[in-house]
């Protein structure tokens, strides 16, 4: 029955906590070495992180380019780490994988990668990362559950140039109806503005900035004056969508 359970990655849920990385290292066969990748997309501009497990391609590029025939796909469609007696540590697979999954572990002269916790899934357990993930960014379960309960939609066909790659693992994408209509940066009053970060830093007592707040002359129109914004509908409030 385990074949009905599938793996779903949803980067929109990821909080970058690394529970998956820490748990992957704990998996019985990994012995302290995590196989999952979790990186910030671009930390200077935001906190978006992206977890990457092996996508377990139907026709795995890594195995096709391996000159030593060291990478095997089993009957369940799981693509395994390179077999130690065969792997020649050439890194062809590392360069060829469209998802950047295999890594050359130079300490062992061996390519190692996510095997979807074969030791766990083969005995009916969930992969370690998808069991612990506190945000549901990594989910192991049925397609029916995802269709019924998730906002995003699964995709398992990817186009790289003229090549189409079909994978066992699903990537969740934005709801079909539309892309998300806004960005959290839209709510930042300093974005695209001439903003002085030290504008409150007036000379005087430490509370100079605050005491000026109730300085009546500087206040805009108040309630009852007819100018108060509280009577107006929020301007194209994204929240109402």
């Amino acid at each position, binding site marked *: 029955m385990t074949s009905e359970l599938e793996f779903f990655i949803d980067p929109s849920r990821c909080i970058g906590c690394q529970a998956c990385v*820490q748990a992957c290292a704990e998996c019985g066969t990994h012995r302290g070495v995590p196989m999952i990748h979790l990186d910030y997309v671009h930390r200077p501009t935001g906190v978006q992180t992206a977890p990457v497990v092996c996508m377990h391609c139907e026709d795995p590029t890594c195995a096709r380019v391996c000159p030593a025939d060291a990478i095997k796909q089993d009957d369940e469609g799981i693509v395994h780490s390179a077999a130690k007696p065969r792997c020649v540590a050439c890194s062809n697979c590392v360069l060829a994988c469209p998802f950047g999954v295999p890594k050359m572990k130079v300490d062992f002269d061996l390519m190692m990668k996510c095997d979807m916790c074969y030791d766990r899934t083969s005995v009916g357990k969930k992969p370690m990362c998808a069991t612990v993930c506190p945000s549901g960014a990594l989910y192991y379960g049925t397609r029916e559950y995802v269709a019924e309960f998730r906002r995003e939609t699964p995709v398992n066909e990817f186009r790289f140039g003229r090549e189409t790659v079909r994978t066992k693992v699903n990537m969740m994408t934005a709801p079909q109806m539309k892309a998300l209509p806004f960005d959290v940066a839209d709510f930042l009053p300093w974005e695209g503005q001439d903003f002085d970060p030290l504008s409150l830093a007036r000379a005087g007592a430490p509370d*100079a*900035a605050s005491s000026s707040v109730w300085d009546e002359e500087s206040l805009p129109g108040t309630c009852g004056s007819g100018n108060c914004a*509280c009577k107006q509908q929020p301007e194209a409030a994204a929240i109402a969508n």
Partner: protein
Amino acid sequence: MATLTITDDRYTELYGPTPNYTPAGGWNNGEPDKLVKTHCCFCGVQCGIQLKVKDNKVIGFEPWEEFPVNQGKLCPKGVKRYMQNDHPDRLLTPLIRSATGFDVASWEKSLTKTVAAIQSIQAKHGKDSFAFLGGASMTNEKAYLNGKFARIALQTANIDYNGRLCMVSAGAANRMAFGVDRAANPWSDIPLAKVIILTGTNLAECFPILTDYIWRARDNGAKIIVIDPRITPIARTADLFLPVRPGRDSALANGILHVMIERGWIDEKFIAEHTHDFDKVRELVKKYTPEVTEKITGVPAKSILAAAEAWGTAETSMLLHARGIEHHTKGVENVLTYINLVLASGRIGKPGCGYGTITGQGNGQGGREHGQRCNQLPGGRDINKPEHRQFIADFWKIPEPELPKQGLTACEIIDAIERGEIKGLLSISFNPLVSIPDSNRTRAALEKLEFFACIDPFLSETARHADVVFAGSLQEEDEGTVTTGEGRCVRLRNSVSPPGNARVDWQIICDLARRLGKEQWFSYGNAGEIFTELTAASKGGPIDYSGMTYERIEQNMGLFWPCPAPEHPGTPRLFEGGKFHHPDGKAKFHAYDYRPPAEDVDAEFPIFFTSGRVVSQYLSGTQTRRIGSLVDQYPEPLCEMHPLLAAKFGINDRDIVKVTTRRGEMTLPAQVVKSIRPDTVFIPYHWAGKKAANQLTNRALDPISKIPEFKVCACKVEKVADAPLKNLTTQ
């Protein structure tokens, strides 16, 4: 004098923190003898987890998917929490301070020495000159025992706990508004809410498991509103983000309520039938127009309108907050102004409708219920109420006048030590040198103690100052109960016995009590007997556990209080039918005008300073700075600042900067990111010594809760040096 006898580096060499990377017995440690179903030792979610035990050592973990709250989910701390019991730094015997740090000592000698010091200090300076500091990472049983020990064995008024740095603003506000101090709803109500306000809670990093509850609500169509000076991971995809200026929370809540009232988005019927004092609030918030509120808070008026519309018109809703609004000199006021939003909406006490506060510590809820606070007796009773005092005095079979009166709170105890009024201290599970603001003063205070004893499994930076260190127990080495952030009392199972010559904490407390001549009050055979006594002591009190037993808790995967009878099912959701816990059954609005923080920015210190946590560390780091893979995840503090601010001072990412406040300075790498307000810098607080953010923070206290103002003070920032790897990275 509790001064250090060797260098800090030497203490670290001898007692850690040493980052441990390997489980007991190595990675090939084989099959466990047993799997123990218990809970994580860290935050207030108290995730269910199974610990693998072999040869009386914890060797690993397995997810526990049947436990309903987390269903096997864990954060990185939970995954690695098992790495402490066989740790090279684990204290295995009592220690007594010597010229070379500490000497190994017998239990007999260390207990005798401690009891002699307690008696001599109290004989000379009075009972209250010896203080007790407890913690909220300990079980309910120990929280109860600590309070009883202080009142009966030490006979001191001065007992308090580290929840004073954590939950007390929320607790006080909850009692003032609702008449009871507990999250109003089980977390299972979160996915049913159509609008969720998260204010001052870095939920994804400090309470990661609730993330899935929030996302499930979003899957159901909920809108998420996040209020924070930083774009934390939970804020990244928020439907509305209000980047509030530090220290302005009450103004923002008043501003949102202003719009709700003006637009008629309030439940007049609920307000009339179930609450008091709304008129005072209605009058107060008249002046908090969106424009005025924008001016105070830095949040755009149109976002205030949007928040009011979303919250005001919601079908169902939950409001959750944490230390971000509570760690202020107006922490209680901030919480109360947000509770006003909940009460005005009328959406509380129903499925998908309510309110909760996120508890930072493992037993942040239970640790504040059973009498280890200076103003509290078991069952959440008030030490200042004559009938409550009489009940507990009778229960303990002591004359009521012998029961000490209200004592000092945690920070006030440190202040009193500094002033020379408190001469001796016994501390358990508390690391004030890292966790209390203005750490230079905390250090000076510790050095003035005539006698200082600690009970801890690891030698914390504070414990380095101790005369006697008792090797206590880790959570997995004892048993008992904790009460989670949703008010669910869960059962901790004993996985292993303490290693070496270490002892279970409650036995150490009982040993001390016996030697202080109070054996008849402290002769427990096991933790279960303490629990039975605790539940009996709570009977009829505001926090009633009297219907709970270990068996019932296990059978039900936890029981929610109040649970006042053996057949009572517990109370997952409070305030159903609009019934609150004040004597007249009504809730109270509170009208609090905005007032500035104790220290605001000025020309000399022009930048807001705020502090908080990272996901891979827990509190003062006594446990998590000892787990290698957690250390590697975020090895040392970074000063987060916005590129607009960094540009003012010529600072680039990873440049070394000096951050100075009126209390101290700190040199550390900058992290230049757009995920923070441009007028604010942030430093996480988990580290000690020169890496302690609390060198900078302000020990100004909330007048009601006595919580310090961790979340806002004024600082200046300057560049000290280029990033160490700058040449490398620019190539």
